[in-house]
């Protein structure tokens, strides 16, 4: 592990976007209740991306002052789910939003 001199910021995850595959039961309501009740989590948003016979693919978005990834992972796994990928993380003292750059604009234009 590398150590830098200016790493005295809080190592806190403030936003987490996960791509999760989970069984239909326990449902999204139960999962959202469980996740939003955690310390350090302010809010949870679970959106269905795809539905299959027994399972569903969902996007879980969480925001809060101190999100503990390992706890979240444990809960999702206990609910029978599997994290496919971490699609977005925002960490630090402040929540940084995505910014549009000239490159993005030109790419949009080309499309």
């Amino acid at each position, binding site marked *: 592990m590398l150590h830098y001199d200016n790493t005295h910021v809080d190592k806190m995850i403030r936003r987490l976007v996960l791509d999760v595959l989970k*069984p239909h*039961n*326990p449902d999204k309501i139960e999962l959202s209740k469980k996740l939003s009740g955690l310390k350090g989590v302010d809010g949870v948003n679970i959106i269905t991306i795809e539905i299959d016979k027994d399972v569903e693919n969902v996007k879980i978005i969480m925001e809060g002052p101190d999100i503990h990834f390992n706890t979240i992972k444990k809960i999702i*796994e*206990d*609910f*029978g789910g*599997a994290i496919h990928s971490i699609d977005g993380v925002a960490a630090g003292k402040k929540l940084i939003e995505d910014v549009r750059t000239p490159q993005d604009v030109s790419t949009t234009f080309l499309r």
Partner: protein
Amino acid sequence: MSEFLKKIKIYFELSKVAPISRRYFVMNGFDGAMIILGIVIGAYLAGTSNPIWIITTGLGASVAMGLSGFYGAYATEEAERIRTLNNLEKSMLKKLDKSIIGRAGKFATVWVALIDGLSPFFIAIISLIPFIFSILGFIPVVHAIYFSMGITLFILFLLGIFLGKISKKNIIISGIKMLLVGLILTLISFVFKLVA
């Protein structure tokens, strides 16, 4: 304690065990009541005057029913739950036996087995209570037989009412239907006695 109850509630919801256990309760409770009714009527028609004999036979039958109910339900429910979990594991591509789904399945298996084993056992024990009074010398054995038959027929009626409540139909008619089955058993037993 509330944490424990919350967990049980989640297991109940997840495993959808409530309707299954209701079905098992009525089905096996009915079995238990009918068997005890058969034993008591049989003892009456055979002219036995020994309450210990009736209690021993009744207890033997109720323990047998309880054990067979417990193990029968445990084995079948476990097989069904494992099958369902296996199908889900195939879809999820991972083991789920340690997840809340697996634990809820195990809970449901034990719960259903307990309901299936205890319902005939307790109904049988309740029906046999008059004979304990008879052994203690409070009532003669013939009265104990009448009381026991009455209690058992009343339990059948209550089971019918319970079914009526579930189906939200007329509970009295539902109760009478169950009671009729008990009365048919009584009638058949008396016909056997006449033929013999």
